[in-house]
């Protein structure tokens, strides 16, 4: 561990704390979420210090370890949903695989034929929670950084207009509301729902956890079987 590494970690943490403070001051305004603001702040700081970004990325490579540990730690919130899973086992057992498939198909749609492979592959895991999207994107040869950004933007839509859209669609069932927002907008939607209705938020957390779990398993398997064998890679 060099002094430079420590200095960069301190810089990153400092930027994060500032951004988190601003986000909390704004009472959870989704666009001010640290996932958007802190990379910008760090980027500006690096520019001012005339420290090259590619060098920064090389120095920070060990951080991907922490991300992997975080993915394993997701097991804890997933396990906590077990009671609701037991109660609604029949519903969930068919809804979840169908929705996971629908979400992946709608994430790319016609882009398969329109844009470069690595771009549309980056959108494939966009409805899962960020660390899982990062890992999945890596194995299916997308651009993990584009995946992370698309996950965050998708989540912000859910936090901003998710509940409003569900009102417009006249969906009143709290399970349906929470579950569909959790599927489409993961942690951002869950955080938003926590402000108003903890029951909906718990369904949202459940959907987010289970969707991440199932998508992280079937997407790499299917993509490696289908795409890699057709010689697309």
């Amino acid at each position: 561990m060099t002094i430079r590494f420590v200095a960069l970690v301190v810089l990153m943490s400092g930027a994060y704390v500032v951004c988190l403070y601003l986000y909390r001051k704004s009472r959870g305004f989704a666009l001010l979420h640290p996932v958007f603001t802190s990379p910008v702040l760090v980027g500006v700081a690096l520019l001012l210090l005339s420290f090259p970004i590619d060098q920064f990325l090389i120095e920070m490579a060990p951080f991907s370890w922490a991300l992997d540990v975080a993915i394993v730690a997701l097991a804890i919130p997933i396990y906590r949903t077990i009671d609701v899973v037991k109660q609604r086992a029949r519903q969930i057992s068919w809804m979840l695989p169908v929705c996971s498939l629908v979400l992946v198909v709608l994430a790319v749609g016609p882009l398969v034929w329109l844009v470069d492979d690595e771009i549309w592959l980056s959108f494939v895991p966009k409805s899962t929670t960020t660390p899982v999207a990062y890992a999945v994107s890596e194995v299916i040869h997308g651009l993990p950084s584009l995946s992370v950004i698309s996950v965050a933007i998708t989540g912000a839509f859910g936090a901003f207009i998710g509940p409003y859209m569900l009102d417009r669609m006249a969906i009143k069932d709290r399970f349906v509301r929470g579950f569909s927002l959790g599927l489409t907008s993961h942690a951002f939607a869950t955080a938003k729902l926590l402000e108003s209705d903890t029951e909906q938020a718990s369904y949202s957390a459940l959907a987010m956890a289970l969707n991440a779990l199932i998508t992280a398993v079937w997407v790499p398997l299917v993509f490696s079987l289908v795409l890699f064998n057709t010689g697309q890679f």
Partner: protein
Amino acid sequence: MKQFFSILIALATLVAFLLLGRQISAAIGWAVPGAVVGMLLLVASLVVLGHVPKGLALVADKALPHLALLFIPPVLAISQVNALTMSHWVWVVLWLLMSWLVSLFVVAKLLNRGKP
């Protein structure tokens, strides 16, 4: 002090599950990321155990909300992708909005039909 040790043990547990997951993933030659295999194993272990040990609960509750910190390098890495210019970004955001709207509509209608 006791809390410190339970946090250390929890972190060691997470790393152990990660390494185990990576080993299994590599051994089978599966495309599923090692970390995801580790997560599945930990979920299974917790189901067998029947509860979440204190240290693990503490680590998950304190650390997981701050995941955005870990994403600073990956998000900054996008600046190294020359293929995406400013006008591309407009399309990216428009596509994400459209895709999100359609997804929410389809998923909510599907779930609404299937409710008991």
